[in-house]
């Protein structure tokens, strides 16, 4: 793992690490190389990926609208709101 790649990962994930934290994380990534080796030792050529461990499908609900929560409840713990909107610094397009 190059440091540049790590910086990009930080940016994509909205994180900003200190230099010493970066060393720790790079060390972690290095250790994970052995995970990769373990996986690569297993032949998965003709194996289908497994997303779910339970063999069920088609869990759907009927199209019925329900109102179970109020705006006031949902915004009770909000850092900043205005007139029933959540508020953030101006988005620049």
């Amino acid at each position, binding site marked *: 793992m190059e440091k540049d790649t790590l910086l990009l990962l930080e*940016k994509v994930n909205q994180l900003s690490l200190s230099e010493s934290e970066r060393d720790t994380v790079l060390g972690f990534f290095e250790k994970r190389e052995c995970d990769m080796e373990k996986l690569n030792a297993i032949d998965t050529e003709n194996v289908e990926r497994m997303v779910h461990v339970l063999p069920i499908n088609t869990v759907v609900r*009927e199209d019925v609208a329900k*109102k179970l929560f109020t705006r006031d409840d*949902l915004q009770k713990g909000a850092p900043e709101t205005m007139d029933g909107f959540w508020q953030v610094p101006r988005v620049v397009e």
Partner: protein
Amino acid sequence: MKFETVIGLEVHVEMATKSKIFCSCSAEFGGEQNDHVCPACCGMPGMLPIVNKKVVDLGMTAGMMLNCHINRTTTFDKKSYYYPDLPAAYQTTQWFAPVAVNGTVEIETANGKKSVRIKQIHMEEDAGKLVHDDWTGTSLVDFNRTSVPLIEIVSQPDLSSAEEVVAYLERLRSLLRFAKVSDCRMEQGSMRCDVNLSVRPEGSDKLGVRTEMKNMNSLSAIVRAIEYETARHIDAIENGTEELVQETRRWDDVKGKSFAMRSKETAGDYRYFPDPNIMPVVIDDAWYDAIKASLPEFPEVKKARYTTELGLGDYDADILTGSRALCDCFEGALAVCGNAKEAANWLISDCMNVLNKKQLTADQLTIDGKALGELIVLVSDGKVGRGNAKKILEAMFEQELSPAKYAEENGFIVSNDTGLIEKTVREAIAADQKAVADFKGGKEKALMALFGKCMKQLKGNCDPQLLRTMLIDEINKA
């Protein structure tokens, strides 16, 4: 050098469901800000997505209307990015196995017919809405639209002009409205598109640099944007005015220009992966067949049937097939009254009048076709006068009712009690000798005045032909 424009569209259509795609909040347009919201669609932890079956129904319907192959196992995936209108910082969409693939849409322009290939249709959730507040210099977030179900229809780059794009969008709108997938109202954002455009020398098989204009929601703006962007690309290629780069641009319809977007959404890696909380949706034969059977005739097939089989004029057939609601009501009425011309007239003049008064569109017609048919029969059998029938029709817009029962309850049944008519006519004549004299003197209009008075006296419940005959007889006797 001559150039050609290569355009592909990604069209987003909000589906006509009552509730959102993964939670039970209302999907209705409008409402107070953040009123149609729950912990799931405002990004709080702990709730799990359960797929709205109607969304899959409509996704399949759209796929079939656009001649697509339906994937019998369709799955949902997560797409990650940060933006304030995306509360969970991921959108659940379909990346690996969309509901429908490989379709076609036929369009017609001045240059002839063309088949536009559809790459895929996938189901996904909409994002919320941002309002920019100039007073505070902040952005305000409304999650009412968050998780409202969408389909995204991705075309191949088969379009080559603004005219074709408009024809394609109008065709999509017509088909999707007909199949009741969506009301496709561009002004409300329930239909909007991203335009991918590049320009290349005519005859070249290499695509030029592609730019994408996002979230276009008016046909006229799309036309202007395509013309502007085409000219900008040609200028850049021919005159080297700027270096074209693959990017997302925002169209400013007021300034008449496109601008490169700097939003975060355009940066980074979406890191798609299968959603572990949503099991695959498997469409079995019964489900597939039920949707297939529910598909409407294409509008042009209906039109041909209306003109050739039912003998309607082109004009009438065009108006009726412009709206699925009109067609449904027409066909319902026809099944009862058996008179296509009469049913068409009632819809095109009388029903449309009421709709216009109420400032509603044809798609918002809610009256039951069967009831309209019954009303038409009441009139043609001479049981209800036409004037009273219009009153019944207006009542039908307010409530579900049986026209015969309503007519009876409100005294709208024609009485052919000749004694009563005779008495009414005599009284009218006695009260207005001047009119009698005028009529005898050759003034046809005077008869109409007397006729009107009698009809009013009889509350409209009289066969007009009978009244007229008796009136003339009585005048002649006088």
